[in-house]
């Protein structure tokens, strides 16, 4: 597979994503500078974590107008696989590729720690190597991860099984105490209605290799890769 990793000014997890796809999973990776306007021959695109444009104005607000985002939107509208991690998730929200916004964490702190997330829907292009209800340990590192949307949109994404990950306890209980940032409904990751765009605040690329002591995050990248051999996953709403 050919994976494109977008590099914005201020991205800082771009090389981690490159390393996981290239060195750990053996795929071809192309780094894509944000000035690019074409995404040719790619199977999937990664919007990595970091602080694009210094998080000025709002997180992701300026990056969404980078030249490359037009190409990312076109790629996504044709069914291309897109994953936004942390700042990448924030950019997808600002770009309107996913519904909702990020508010400041309720604690006002930048939180960097391992958290547990529950896989709410395992029949997707991003989670097919997980079990439904499986608990993954993946680190977060953000100040603005407090997901918010209006009640109508929230009802829609829940009914449509677009919520893929929710913050939970180590044994899989979705409780207020397990919510690190105040996120609505403990939401840690959502996908679009077509099932080809995922945004998640936890960093799977930081927990995808045994030497790091945690490989849970790798399941998400492996799910993406294996989804190309699973035509039933290409069309949306399998198992819903």
């Amino acid at each position, binding site marked *: 597979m050919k994976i494109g990793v977008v590099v914005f000014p201020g991205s800082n997890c771009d090389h981690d994503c490159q390393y996981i796809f290239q060195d750990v999973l053996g795929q071809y990776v192309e780094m894509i500078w944000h000035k690019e306007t074409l995404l040719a021959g790619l199977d999937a695109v990664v919007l990595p974590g970091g602080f694009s444009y210094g998080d000025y104005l709002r997180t992701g607000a300026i990056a969404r107008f980078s030249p490359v985002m037009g190409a990312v939107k076109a790629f996504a509208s044709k069914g291309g696989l897109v994953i936004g991690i942390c700042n990448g998730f924030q950019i997808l929200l600002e770009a309107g590729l996913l519904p909702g916004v990020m508010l400041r964490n309720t604690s006002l702190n930048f939180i960097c720690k391992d958290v547990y997330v529950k896989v709410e829907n395992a029949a997707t292009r991003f989670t097919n190597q997980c079990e439904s209800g499986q608990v993954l340990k993946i680190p977060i590192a953000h100040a603005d991860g407090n997901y*918010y*949307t209006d009640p109508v949109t929230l009802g829609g994404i829940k009914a449509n099984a677009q919520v893929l990950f929710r913050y939970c306890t180590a044994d899989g209980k979705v409780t207020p105490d397990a919510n690190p940032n105040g996120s609505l409904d403990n939401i840690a990751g959502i996908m679009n209605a077509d099932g080809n765009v995922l945004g998640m605040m936890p960093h799977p690329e930081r927990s995808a290799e045994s030497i790091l002591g945690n490989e849970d995050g790798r399941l998400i990248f492996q799910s993406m890769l294996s989804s190309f051999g699973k035509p039933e996953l290409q069309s949306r709403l399998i198992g819903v």
Partner: protein
Amino acid sequence: MKAKIHVTLKQGILDPQGKAIEHALDSLGFKNAGNVRVGKYMEVDVNEPDCAKADVQVKQMCEKLLANTVIEDYRYELQ
């Protein structure tokens, strides 16, 4: 013309910064202070002598970039 733009969180949207400031004011003895909301203030020079045209442009700036209208309101004045 100069646009003076205020971007504020909509009513009902949680404002953790406002809450923190409210607590700080309270601990400083300002017991009457409440409901603190933090917003943004921006000034933009608009090179457009026609007030109506400048107004349209500033509105577009707010809608497209300066405010996220899911959670924020904006208002501005042109001088």
